[in-house]
């Protein structure tokens, strides 16, 4: 019955079709990300009340927690894309995995930076060797290793395949980061947001957080799509569809 879904996904794996699809989605994703991000920042920084314990300093949560979620979410996407790329040798999946890495590394760096800014007034220290902080730092190193490996090959596809393999090897770290707060009882506070069941946080603070979460996801989509488009143009430079894109339709046929 719903035969068109796998068919559509299959067609989307072809570079020219994905190029056009990404080009159509990109402005919408970026625009929505900016609008929702603005709303979330207004809600978080102006509307939400000050915390009973942490005062106004807690407001950095509206940047810190969504970036931390994204640092893990992007790695999960990369793992799936790398697996698809390695097993079925779909070039687009390799490109998605590799172009996600710098975005994920950036979100991880933001998480670490905002975390240390938050840690200074709350814990009295910029950095502590606590389980969640160190595993997030290790995640950043893994991202950097993947980016470094990808760029150290002369052949792009070979580099992408080697780095995709490293993505799978490094995937063991993701559950460690995610559950470290529950496994080791350290300085970092436990998680307060629950998707199932009641959250341990006021509703006026939850909605900006969730809005920001959607905004960061949309930003990831926009950023990824524009990176993948650039990469496709670069790597498929000799193909007919790129020539057609640059010179107009079927010029070489008539000339």
């Amino acid at each position, binding site marked *: 019955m719903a035969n068109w879904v796998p068919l559509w996904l299959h067609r989307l794996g072809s570079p020219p079709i994905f190029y056009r699809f990404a080009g159509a989605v990109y402005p919408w994703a970026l625009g929505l990300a900016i609008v929702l991000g603005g709303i979330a920042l207004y809600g978080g920084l102006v509307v939400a009340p000050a915390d009973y314990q942490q005062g106004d300093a807690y407001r950095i949560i509206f940047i810190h927690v969504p970036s931390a979620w994204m640092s893990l979410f992007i790695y999960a996407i990369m793992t799936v894309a790398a697996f698809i790329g390695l097993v079925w040798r779909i070039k687009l999946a390799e490109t998605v995995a590799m172009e996600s890495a710098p975005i994920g590394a950036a979100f991880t760096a933001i998480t670490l930076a905002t975390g240390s800014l938050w840690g200074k007034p709350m814990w009295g220290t910029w950095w502590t060797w606590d389980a969640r902080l*160190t595993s997030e730092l*290790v995640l950043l190193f893994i991202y950097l290793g993947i980016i470094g490996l990808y760029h150290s090959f002369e052949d792009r596809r070979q580099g992408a395949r080697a780095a995709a393999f*490293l993505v799978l*090897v*490094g995937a063991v770290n993701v559950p460690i980061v995610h559950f470290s707060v529950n496994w080791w009882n350290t300085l970092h506070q436990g998680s307060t947001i629950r998707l199932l069941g009641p959250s341990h946080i006021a509703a006026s603070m939850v909605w900006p957080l969730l809005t920001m979460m959607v905004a960061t996801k949309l930003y990831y989509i926009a950023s990824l799509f524009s990176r993948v488009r650039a990469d496709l143009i670069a790597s498929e430079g000799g193909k007919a569809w790129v020539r057609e894109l640059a010179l107009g339709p079927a010029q070489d046929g008539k000339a």
Partner: protein
Amino acid sequence: MTPGSTTAACAALLRRDLTLAWRRRGDIALPVLYAVIVVTLFPFALGPEPALLARIAGGVVFVTVLLAMLLSLDGLFRPDIEDGSMEQLMLAPQPLALLVGMKILAHWLTAALPLIVVAPVLAGMLHLPPAAAPVLVLALAIATPLLSLLGAVLVALTAGAKRSGMLLALMLLPLCVPVVIFAAGAVAAAQDGLPWIAPVAWLGAGLALAVVLAPLACAAALRIAMES
């Protein structure tokens, strides 16, 4: 052993690698010398206070051994790839994972075993209590093959890359964090008179997993690196 059987091939490969290493005996001594020099630097940098040195002895020895092994890892597959014998191993009818496992074993015997032998001396230089020395050797005996196996996968991945020296450190060190935590944790526990068997058991579990999975991953990574 019938010639051409998998056992014979593995034995031949192991013998070849060990003979090659023995012909270049000087290279085996280099990681040991490196470890001795790095450990000597710590008393100069931190001051010769025995209590302080005894506190950090276990951790310093583990980090030093890890760095020494990192230096020796680059030579694991590179000579074979350069002279073309890696292609022959891939074409061989025997499973590549098994043959690669033999190469890793040979690497561990030549690069890590000498380090384990000198480790009690290094720890003694840093005033580690003699009671903790057997635990140190046991933890090293389990942790170093784990590092060899993990390192081999990543060396195989960089085998096709043009420049790989610092990159290997960037890729390997994050993955080694759990090994260092458990190995140094076991020594610290023994030093404080606490039960140390749990971290050693974790290391053993990691090693069991790596022995099964790492040669397979290594073979797959080598095929990616060589396919161009």
